[in-house]
């Protein structure tokens, strides 16, 4: 819509586009991803080893710094800018994109309610990538029902420290992180509302009693170690408590409202990567004397893949701006973009394998890896079923 006024008649922003800064940062990350990360992706998947070299690359180019405030060495970027970086990296390597997403996810409780002392203490190292941080909410028996966590933190009356006991499962990068954002039960007295049972703590990897029990063997995102963590009488000073006692569950939910777009960005990136491989293949591959892209059944698949990916991307970008603007239905936007992007990534990568035929099914081309990587985006940070639950509740609560 054209308008003489810079803000149009409705007061809306004149353009519905990325800012110059956002586009410049996205393009810089894209070049880095294409030239430095893409060549490593197949090997990262094959060896299932955490790519420390990629982590260093991301650190030295300030990509971890995006979400942290400038006064702590960050770039003060908004949620959309973080997502643009995750998307571009995931386009070539979902494991590498996840490194950025997890760093942001596990920092969110600190970003949301951390004290100035806590931010001063940890943010400079997190922004510079000198420290990695993981997010430990899920337990073996508390997945979608996070409030059912059993890991406990009891107060040592003499010192004021907290003693944490329990275990956490499916913790992305739990074995390579220096800090773990842990949610533990601090109040399970009879009659305590479920959402007031948990509190949030930062556990440091060298604290006695903390251990990595095992690493899962996974279908995708194989370079990202998914760990089971145990806490046996881990003594944590009260200075490591994030937010108020009993505020943990609410904090976890607010965290997920802002972190699910990161996973949606990973999903959009994976879909885009698969689409690009499939389109290039369809242009080059000849059967019956012409490129298979000229066959309408293949062309139609590519068109649908492109349209669906773009739709997921636009929902993600819109969700980011709504969440950043403090929309009251942030949880709904967050769930919707993750739902749509995750399902899109699964569909588009599956179709990409189809376009490549037999070549799509072997590891000579990256689309089989992308298809395996895509699946996780339908599972973590809330299954697609949980996203639908969140959306449906938001919808019916307004009536």
């Amino acid at each position, binding site marked *: 819509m054209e308008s003489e006024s810079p803000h149009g008649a409705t007061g809306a922003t004149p353009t519905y586009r990325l800012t110059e800064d956002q586009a410049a940062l996205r393009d810089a990350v894209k070049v880095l991803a294409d030239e430095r990360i893409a060549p490593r992706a197949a090997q990262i998947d094959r060896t299932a080893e955490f790519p420390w070299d990629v982590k260093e690359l991301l650190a*030295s180019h300030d990509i971890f710094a995006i979400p942290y405030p400038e006064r702590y060495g960050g770039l003060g970027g908004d949620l959309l800018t973080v997502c643009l970086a995750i998307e571009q990296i995931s386009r070539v390597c979902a494991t590498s994109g996840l490194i950025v997403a997890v760093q942001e996810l596990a920092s969110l409780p600190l970003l949301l309610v951390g004290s100035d002392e806590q931010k001063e203490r940890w943010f400079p190292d997190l922004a510079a990538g000198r420290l990695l941080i993981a997010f430990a909410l899920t337990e073996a028996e508390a997945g979608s029902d996070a409030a059912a966590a059993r890991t406990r933190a009891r107060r040592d009356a003499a010192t004021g420290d907290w003693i944490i006991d329990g275990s956490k499962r499916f913790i992305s990068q739990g074995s390579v992180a220096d800090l773990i954002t842990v949610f533990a039960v601090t109040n399970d007295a009879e009659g305590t509302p479920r959402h007031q049972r948990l509190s949030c703590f930062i556990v440091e990897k060298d604290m006695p009693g903390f251990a990595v029990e095992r690493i899962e063997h996974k279908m995708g995102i194989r370079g990202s170690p998914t760990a089971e963590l145990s806490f046996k009488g881990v003594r944590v000073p009260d200075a490591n408590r994030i937010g108020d006692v009993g505020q943990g569950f609410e904090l976890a939910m607010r965290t997920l409202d802002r972190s699910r777009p990161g996973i949606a960005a990973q999903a959009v990136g994976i879909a885009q990567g698969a689409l690009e491989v499939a389109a290039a293949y369809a242009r080059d591959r000849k059967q019956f004397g012409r490129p298979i892209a000229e066959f309408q059944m293949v062309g139609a698949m590519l068109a649908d893949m492109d349209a669906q990916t773009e739709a997921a991307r636009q929902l993600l970008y819109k969700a980011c701006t709504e969440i950043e603007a403090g929309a009251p239905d942030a949880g709904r936007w967050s769930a919707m973009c993750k739902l749509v992007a995750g399902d899109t990534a699964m569909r588009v990568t599956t179709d990409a394998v189809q376009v490549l035929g037999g070549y799509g099914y072997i590891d000579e081309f990256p689309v089989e890896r992308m298809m395996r990587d895509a699946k996780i985006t339908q599972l973590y940070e809330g299954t697609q079923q949980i996203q639908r639950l969140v959306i449906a509740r938001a919808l019916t609560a307004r009536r």
Partner: protein
Amino acid sequence: MRIVVLVKPVPDTASGGERLRPDDWRLDRAAVPAVVNANDEYALEAALKLTETHGGEVAMLTMAGPTAPETMRKALAMGAASGTLVTDDALGGSDVVSTTRVLAAALKGLEYDLVFAGADTSDGGGGVVPAGVATLVGLPYLSYAARIEPNLETKRVRVHRISPTGYDVLEAPMPALVVATQALGEPRYPSLKGIMAARSKTIETTGIPADTAPDAGTLGGAASTTAVLAAEAPPPRAATRVVRDPADEAARQVVEFLAERRII
């Protein structure tokens, strides 16, 4: 130490859309996005490394169209402190002589200990502008540098120049003009903080320096000593056979292909 790097925006060959204008066979610069000439990036990288070691800063000098600041931002994001753009409609179609005279005149208004240039540009490809600039300004000319060692105390610079048999070691008083090569090391990727910082750096835009040309018609396309009479696309490549089989089988087919043609 202050180093001025000559930087030229060139068409991005990766875009695949570069073409010549059919009326005058000049490069259609509007048809494709511009990037920093790759060899200039190597010169810039070498300059940045030297100022990181010895202190000082890097400035860039560009002669190009009015949209050049977009491209020059990339160099600022890599770490250059500032830029000067010489632009004027009359400079369109400049040959190497015009370009040399304008850059030499513009350099006279800048302070520097060293001037760096890339070996050549990916669009014009003349490769003589740096030598011309050094001649007009009266600077020692040290070409094809694989190593650059300035000495700020003696005010001299030593360069390892690539030669057919190894290296020639050249030394000259500063200021001097040095032509960088890819042997100096891969250019860095701009960091995100570098990109943000580049937004607040200054690119000064100027017209044709006053003492370049006393009379009009001695610069730009009007004065060009060369003209393109015709251009045609190269013939399409013969059919390419792509072997996608596993390595052993692929190698066998390649050997067979070459042997059939008596190439091996």
